[in-house]
């Protein structure tokens, strides 16, 4: 048995819970991210069902205006920051070291701190429901509706404080991922041999590193406006609410790519393996991804076309936004090119990946439509935009995540998810989301604004709202079957083997699930698809060495301590300064212990 040195240096009888709380193993942290993220995904889904139930018929009475506003705000916040981003982080964590042939991420303890800080932020945001009211100003929180004058409760302080904490968490993750990918690649793994998924991860990491500081500034300004009577955004004292919009979207638009690029990466892994041929146009896909990342910082004002920007800015931002359609189009064609001429195995993962192409295209093309300010005058803040963003985030991001789950589940657990139930889930999600979100285009066309808790009859909105609500329940059914599938599968014996799909990237070179140290021998990389290269050139895997002397970092409880300090700091920001001071003390102690902790 291969036993890592690190895991021996701890008492054998440590409890399971303590093991999870102190782990610095990237695969365990990935599991924590995954389970927590999926739980929040279910929670945000329930919020969505409540919203759809309220809107099923005109003048609905299921929710009142106040609760509705809290729900649509937290639905977005939860899906974005507590579900899609952490599910992305879960895959990043698990597969960065495995795909680049490393034993762990560059900063294992920082990685653990990232998770615990995320948990603190997530719990804090969600707890607002039980502590006087959740944020209710939309996830974009436009000033001055967020000032104490119009939002006197604590709702928006929960928003600023928990998003600040979540931002810190993502920033730590992003730095860690970027450093890992750049510095810890296996011998022979040149940048242009990185799996596309790694490239997309790298782009996402840089998007986060560059955009999170921006929103951090905005959130602190908002917190100061609300708590210390500054006037960054209050018009009556010389501040400017439009300033908030610029800062928010300067972060907000790159954030969209943070959500979608990981799924583009997953699809770029699944399609070639299932088609049994290399990715079509690797370099083009990589450069297109990077171009999207760069252009993503030059388009923010397309969210502000109706704020009175003036003719020239409208034209400039319209042009830059339309320009993003070009690299996006290149990607779509290259995925199709990957299918072309293949011998495609239609597993559940393939279904999700293939449907991603069509669904994401619909979301992408409607995005290019309202890149035209003339059209956007009608689309902006109408249900057309709701349709658009859900095609990108559900048809795109979520379908991609499910493709990833079905594709990598055998690697992560050694078990195949049940294919029959998997296909049921696929069809339920596919049909359900098209029923839910496609009609929203028609509602937008019929002039239905977003973020309204009620609407009158007689406007021609009844039918499509009812259809949309029906669709959302079908989605819920699909997710339910997935959960059953998961729990059933986890009870079965692991039979998947190392490389069940005949994949070409390094994660398939080790056992399923991988040992704590990932690879007995770090593989040598000779091609973009190293395992296929070895297969085709008859290169056998290196023999397993007799003795493994692999140093792994020991578990540490210190990240947990620091995260507790962050929690206290946040709680103090919402209650009493004294608690914050205590939090800072805990953080200082934690960082000090961190620096001195022995790593043997």
């Amino acid at each position, binding site marked *: 048995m291969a036993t890592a040195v690190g895991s021996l240096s701890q008492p054998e009888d440590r409890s399971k819970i303590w093991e999870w709380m102190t782990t610095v193993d990237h695969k365990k942290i990935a599991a924590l991210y995954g389970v927590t993220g999926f739980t929040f995904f279910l929670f945000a889904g329930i919020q969505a069902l409540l919203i759809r139930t309220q809107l099923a018929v005109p003048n609905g009475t299921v929710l009142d205006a106040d609760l509705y506003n809290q729900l649509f705000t937290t639905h977005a916040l939860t899906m974005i920051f507590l579900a899609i981003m952490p599910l992305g982080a879960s895959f990043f964590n698990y597969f960065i070291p495995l795909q680049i042939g490393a034993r762990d991420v560059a900063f294992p303890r920082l990685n653990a701190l990232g998770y615990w800080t995320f948990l603190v932020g997530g719990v804090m945001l969600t707890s607002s429901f039980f502590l006087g009211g959740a944020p209710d100003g939309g996830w974009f929180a436009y000033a001055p509706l967020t000032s104490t004058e119009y939002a006197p409760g604590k709702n928006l302080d929960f928003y600023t404080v928990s998003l600040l904490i979540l931002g810190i968490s993502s920033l730590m993750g992003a730095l860690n991922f970027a450093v890992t990918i750049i510095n810890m690649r296996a011998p022979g793994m040149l940048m242009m041999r990185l799996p596309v998924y790694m490239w997309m991860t790298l782009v996402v990491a840089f998007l986060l590193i560059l955009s999170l500081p921006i929103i951090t500034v905005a959130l602190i300004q908002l917190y100061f406006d609300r708590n210390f009577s500054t006037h960054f955004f209050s*018009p009556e004292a010389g501040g400017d609410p439009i300033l908030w919009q610029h800062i928010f979207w300067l972060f907000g638009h790159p954030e969209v790519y943070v959500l979608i690029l990981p799924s583009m990466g997953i699809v770029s892994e699944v399609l070639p393996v299932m088609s049994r041929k290399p990715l079509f146009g690797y370099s083009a896909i990589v450069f297109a991804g990077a171009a999207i990342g760069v252009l993503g910082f030059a388009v923010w004002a397309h969210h502000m076309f109706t704020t009175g920007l003036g003719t020239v800015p409208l034209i400039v931002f319209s042009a830059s936004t339309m320009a993003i359609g070009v690299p996006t189009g290149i990607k779509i064609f290259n995925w199709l090119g990957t299918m072309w001429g293949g011998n495609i195995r239609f597993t559940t993962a393939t279904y999700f990946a293939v449907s991603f192409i069509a669904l994401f295209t619909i979301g992408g093309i409607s995005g290019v439509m309202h890149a035209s300010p003339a059209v956007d005058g009608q689309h902006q803040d109408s249900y057309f935009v709701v349709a658009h963003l859900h095609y990108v985030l559900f048809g795109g991001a979520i379908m991609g995540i499910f493709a990833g789950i079905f594709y990598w589940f055998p690697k992560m657990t050694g078990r195949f998810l049940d294919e029959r139930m998997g296909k049921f889930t696929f069809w339920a999600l596919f049909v359900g989301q098209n029923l839910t979100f496609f009609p929203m285009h028609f509602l937008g066309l019929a002039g239905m604004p977003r973020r309204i808790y009620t609407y009158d009859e007689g406007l*021609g909105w009844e039918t499509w709202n009812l259809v949309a609500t029906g669709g959302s329940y079908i989605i819920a059914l699909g997710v339910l079957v997935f959960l059953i599938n998961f729990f059933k599968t986890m009870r079965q014996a692991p039979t998947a083997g190392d490389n069940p799909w005949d994949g070409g990237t390094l994660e398939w070179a080790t056992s399923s699930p991988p040992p704590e140290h990932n690879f007995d021998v770090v593989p040598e990389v000779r091609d973009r698809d190293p395992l296929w290269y070895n297969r085709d050139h008859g290169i056998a895997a290196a023999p397993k060495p007799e003795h493994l002397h692999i140093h792994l970092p020991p578990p540490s409880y210190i990240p947990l301590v620091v995260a507790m300090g962050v929690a206290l700091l946040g709680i103090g920001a919402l209650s009493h300064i004294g608690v914050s001071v205590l939090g800072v003390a805990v953080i200082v102690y934690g960082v000090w212990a961190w620096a001195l902790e022995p790593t043997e």
Partner: protein
Amino acid sequence: MGRSGPRRMIAIVLSLVITAVTVWLMYIAFVDSADTPQTTYQAMSDNAQLAQDVYTIIFILAGAVMAGVIALTLAFSFIYRERPGQQALQIHGNSKLELLWTLLPVLIVAAMAVPTFNAIAVITGDAPEDSLEVKAVGYQWWFQFQYPELGVVTASDLHLPVDRPILVKLESKDVIHSFWVPQLSGKVDMVPGHTNQLWFTPNTVGEFMGQCAEFCGLSHANMRFRVFVHTQEDFDAWVQSQLAEAATPEEGLAAAGAQQFTMSGCIGCHTVRGNALAMGVIGPELTHFGSRTRLAGGMVENTEVELRRWLKNPPAMKPGSIMPNLNLTDEQIDSLVAYLYSLQ
């Protein structure tokens, strides 16, 4: 082999049929939704038409791209589904193809951009000299309309003459709202501390629906308005009627209502020109309240039943309403209703 022969033909035909049916269904639903009361696709002004023409071009291009990708995805899924004996082509790319599908999006995007920029230059350009200026002010949660040149102030119903350019200056008294009458103009936000504007020339007499399109708090959903486009004569007549001051009723229930209006503190928030005490500016001007079609920020029709419901308890009818529950008795409401409807 699945890549050639009849199977391939069947796959292609099937993909095209599925795509065609999908697109056809979408088209039917599109046409159907374009024919609704608050439609964004039945322009009734010059600038809305300009935007709609761009929309049409973009919609056709977008539809074509969508249909193309759906058809290709389906066809490849059918044709290249795994089959015994079939081998996957081991290729890494194709420079010619890749160049082609880099140029294709460039062309499509250019075809969208050129008409867009032309339209934008007109729509966001200066309004014609002879425009009628209207100032629209957003309040939580109702629209006030002022006609500075005519000296008229009203709420929730906007009256305009046909075939005359209208310059709408947009302001807000509290948070950000957005002025949107889909058939007459794309939306432009009303931002506190800024004055935005839009202009258009209505070309058809009729009634058009408007609604606030920027989330503005609890009753955002209930912040609506109507636009009435009249012939010039009808518009002039309407202006004349609005210029008159309200006469204070001398006898009957309405007279009691007028007194009640003072006693209940309504005067502190509402203006009634002709009633020297009623000079409040927090709520809508009520000088000609009786002639308005909509009540409570366009939320409901202005009928006696709804007005009673409103006066009984405004926040119960409209969440968050700035007009508080004044705990009026039924008799007080009787008299107030009589008074308010005397304000024609």
